[in-house]
């Protein structure tokens, strides 16, 4: 396996727990690693309008998350603070609320056998459930499927879990060469050659360069996100999409979407816009002190959907990439890892192969 971020660690954990012999090659501390800078939501309510396959895959993961959290706690002693009590997406204008209503209605209709319930709440109804909202809040959407974890504990738990199941983890092992033949892969990292009949490429943004070497295609780009963190306070708010309270009490305010190339530094204008919106949403935040901010780079495909495929040219090589690696961690640890172990991805994942990007552009 190449890449020990959230996707690689989840799949690696899933393979190791099935008894496969796994070696995970990862970079060192200074890597670009979304797994270290994300917001930690297991978020369902906006995933997949127009793409039922993505809606179902996300929902499956969110349904399996409680089991994953319990299993990780048992195997490793690390509690990743998983909660699933539903989530609110708070809107500050009528337009925002109307757009959410339309999107959720699309999701409800396309859900098929999987029931999908949502609520649209106006200011009054929301204030009864989330008393601390400000007067400018117009309303919110709510679904019971949304949840969250502590993302750093999640990464730690997955790594502890894969070691526990006998996997080998190689840090500071940036892969620079992949020699591929069907079911026969030779990978060079830190001067050492590794050989395996199967290869999983889950190197986040690093997959872009490595994919062609294994007959895979990963046209990924970085999309920057910035986050603010406050001092710890007593429990104050339930889970919302942009502002959440961690189990220790700190509030996280997120998160921007910026095309900034590989620059993962913070920018004061963006942070102050996040803070301004947060204070309009929850005026009590005006008095709460900020203690940290950071930026991290999302791993984004051209259409925002995951990329999952097995190489046609070099069977045995798999690619996995997505921009919601926390949400999809349970899908990666269970069904995805089980499919890799079987040697074939299921039909439900065919929609996510990279051939969808091969369509020639219209003039």
């Amino acid at each position, binding site marked *: 396996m190449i890449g020990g971020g959230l996707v690689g660690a989840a799949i690696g954990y899933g393979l190791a727990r099935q008894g496969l012999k796994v070696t995970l090659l990862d970079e060192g501390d200074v890597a670009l690693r979304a797994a270290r800078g994300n917001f930690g939501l297991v978020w369902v309510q906006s995933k997949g309008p127009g793409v039922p396959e993505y809606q179902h895959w996300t929902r499956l993961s969110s349904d399996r998350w409680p089991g994953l959290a319990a299993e990780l706690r048992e195997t490793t002693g690390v509690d990743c603070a998983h909660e699933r009590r539903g989530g609110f997406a708070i809107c500050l204008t009528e337009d925002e609320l109307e757009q959410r209503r339309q999107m959720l209605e699309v999701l409800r209709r396309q859900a098929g056998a999987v029931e999908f319930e949502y609520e649209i709440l106006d200011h009054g109804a929301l204030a009864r459930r989330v008393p*601390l909202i400000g007067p400018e809040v117009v309303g919110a959407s709510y679904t019971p499927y949304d949840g969250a974890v502590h993302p750093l504990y999640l990464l730690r738990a997955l790594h502890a879990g894969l070691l526990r199941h006998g996997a080998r983890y190689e840090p500071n092992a940036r892969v620079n060469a992949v020699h591929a033949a069907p079911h026969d892969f030779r990978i060079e990292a830190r001067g050492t050659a590794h050989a395996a009949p199967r290869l999983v490429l889950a190197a986040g943004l690093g997959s872009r360069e490595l994919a062609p070497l294994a007959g895979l295609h990963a046209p990924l780009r970085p999309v920057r996100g910035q986050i603010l963190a406050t001092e710890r306070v007593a429990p104050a708010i339930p889970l919302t999409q942009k502002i959440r309270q961690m189990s220790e*009490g700190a509030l996280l305010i997120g998160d921007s979407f910026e095309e900034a190339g590989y620059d993962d530094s913070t920018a004061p204008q963006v942070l102050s816009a996040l803070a301004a919106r947060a204070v309009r949403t929850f005026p009590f935040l005006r008095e709460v002190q900020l203690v940290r901010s950071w930026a991290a780079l999302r791993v984004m495909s051209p259409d925002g959907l995951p990329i999952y495929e097995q190489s046609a040219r070099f069977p045995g090589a798999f690619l996995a990439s997505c921009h919601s690696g926390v949400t999809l961690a349970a899908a990666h640890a269970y069904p995805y890892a089980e499919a890799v172990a079987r040697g074939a991805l299921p039909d439900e994942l065919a929609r996510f192969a990279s051939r969808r990007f091969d369509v020639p552009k219209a003039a």
Partner: protein
Amino acid sequence: MFRRLPETAAQPVTVVIDGRPVRVPFDLTAAAAVLIGDGITRTTPVSGSPRAPYCMMGVCFDCLMEIDGVPNTQACMVPVAEGMRINRQVGARKVRS
């Protein structure tokens, strides 16, 4: 345990610690002023046990107090001032509704 260097025996200011006026040298931090008394800055949100300043240099966060109305303030990072109100912080900081 602590002794002041003679050259710093300086003019005192009055601060109010948990409601009681106390005269302390002007060049102390709020945490040092508390250490002249019982030394307790806060009780923890988790177990409720009392805590005292520990590192005195801004890294351990055991000295969180409510200073001039601002909770979760690191008392070891704040120089005393005339009339400063220094209150023990009990449990987690509450937010105002």
